[in-house]
């Protein structure tokens, strides 16, 4: 208990607000953590969303979607990062750790989002889609006006999982020195037997994860179309059932 109080005291110590020769400032570490997360997430979205939507809409390559949703629960983050640090060492001469870490983050971020996009579309009632097609919607209109709105909850759920996965992985990437992140405090604290700093890093990471997850949880509520959340008990049960049935509705951080 004492250590946790010391951790909080460490966080609120003004000396840790700016980067000095002896240590990194919290705002800098936080900024770097967020930039790493943001950049990785952007690339993840660009890759995973179109692919997931394609699989979900066409039903082609469903195996990829299923594998992705399973893999996302059991990917050994630390191992992946280690491999990428080794593989990319010779390829990028400068900023080696930064580039290879980002590749690893993206790789870890893709499966949950891919699975979310895929299962979000998969969960939409086939009859609704069939009817949309029969009344003359184009495939693109079916995707954008029917499948995405109705699957939005699971798609955002997948995005939530990806975001947390990346935030968590950015933390442990600090084990390899760079890149700078909130995990740097944990790594440095451990190395220097400075436990208040280590606890402070842990608290900051947890707080960051909780805040961002909370914000995304609100977004997730917001994107569910009105007719689906309202309406009869039957409809509501269906919506909830669909959410429980898929792996990607709630964030999972095993193995981190």
């Amino acid at each position, binding site marked *: 208990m004492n250590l946790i109080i010391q951790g909080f005291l460490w966080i609120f110590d003004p000396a840790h607000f700016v980067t000095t020769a002896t240590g990194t400032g919290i705002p800098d570490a936080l900024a770097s953590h967020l930039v790493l997360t943001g950049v990785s997430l952007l690339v993840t979205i660009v890759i995973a969303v179109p692919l997931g939507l394609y699989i979900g809409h066409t039903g082609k390559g469903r195996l990829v979607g299923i594998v992705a949703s399973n893999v996302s629960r059991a990917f050994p983050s630390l191992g992946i990062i280690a491999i990428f640090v080794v593989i990319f060492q010779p390829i990028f001469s400068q900023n080696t750790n930064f580039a290879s870490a980002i590749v690893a983050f993206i790789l870890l971020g893709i499966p949950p989002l891919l699975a979310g996009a895929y299962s979000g579309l998969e969960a939409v*009632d086939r*009859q*609704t889609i*069939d*009817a*949309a*097609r*029969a*009344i*003359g*919607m*184009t495939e693109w*209109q079916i995707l954008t*006006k*029917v499948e995405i*709105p*109705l699957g939005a909850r699971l798609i955002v759920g997948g995005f939530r999982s990806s975001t947390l996965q990346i935030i968590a992985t950015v933390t442990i990437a600090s084990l390899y020195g760079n890149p700078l992140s909130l995990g740097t405090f944990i790594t440095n604290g451990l190395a220097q037997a400075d436990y208040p700093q280590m606890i402070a890093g842990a608290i900051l990471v947890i707080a960051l994860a909780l805040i961002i997850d909370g914000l995304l949880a609100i977004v997730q509520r917001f994107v569910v*179309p*009105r*007719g*689906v959340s*309202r*309406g*009869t008990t*039957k*409809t509501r049960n269906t919506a909830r059932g669909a959410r429980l049935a898929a792996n990607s509705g709630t964030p999972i951080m095993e193995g981190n």
Partner: protein
Amino acid sequence: MIEFKSVSKLYADGTHAVDNFSVVIPSRKTTVFVGSSGCGKTTLLRMINRMVDPTSGAIEIDGENIANTEPVHLRRGIGYVMQNSGLLPHRTVIDNVATVLFLTKVPKVEAYARANELLDTVGLDRSLAKRYPGELSGGQQQRVGVARGLAANPNILLMDEPFGAVDPIVRIDLQAETMRLQRELDKTIVFVTHDIDEAFLLGDQVLILEKGAKIAQRGTPEEILANPASDFVASFIGADRGKRRLTVDSKVKAKGNDVVLIDAGGYAAGVISAPGGKLAVGSASPKSRSVSNKTSQAGDG
């Protein structure tokens, strides 16, 4: 007029869903495809709006081969009503009805005005316009489905077991509404059902289908009842079980000059008036049946 010319549908696994099917569906009449599950009747229906393309043969609408029409364009010009309504759950009733109009870029004001009129047409109160499909009863949802099917003012309305999932009282109501709409709007309706009573009720032309969409018999309900073409037809319409052969019940007295009719199994089938002991003779046309309007929707609320 819709014409099927030697149409076949062969699936990859070798099953012939439809085998060399030819028929003419006259305009402004109701044609009913009736048969057991898996006989290919829904496949036939879905071929008309190219939801399914035949492996061989051609389908023509007013002499034009539909294979030459782009599917999306074709579908927008043909009304489609399906079982369980198929409404978009995230759109309000009025938006669902207006969907097809929006797709064809009809201005908003005009589309909503038309959608509101259609709610009247199918006997739905306009106060339901802002509700979501999940807040409606099954019967109301089907009415919205019909309104949506009529939105683009199509000449052809395809109905795929539209009343299969609603309770019997509501079904009778919706069947009556369909007959009223057909009379008022003069559409070519192609209707699919597995219920022979529904087929006889709604159909000007009834096609009884066997497996592979083979036509077991085609004709008016009267023609089919009078002369079942085969044992299959007799069995399908219930003639072989005596369901259609009615006799006067000697025991039960009905009021006035009415007498109770029973089928060959002894079950009550209806009453017939017999003024002065003579059975009344009716004429098959013109057909009429009392239909409900929007002020009385039995069991529909």
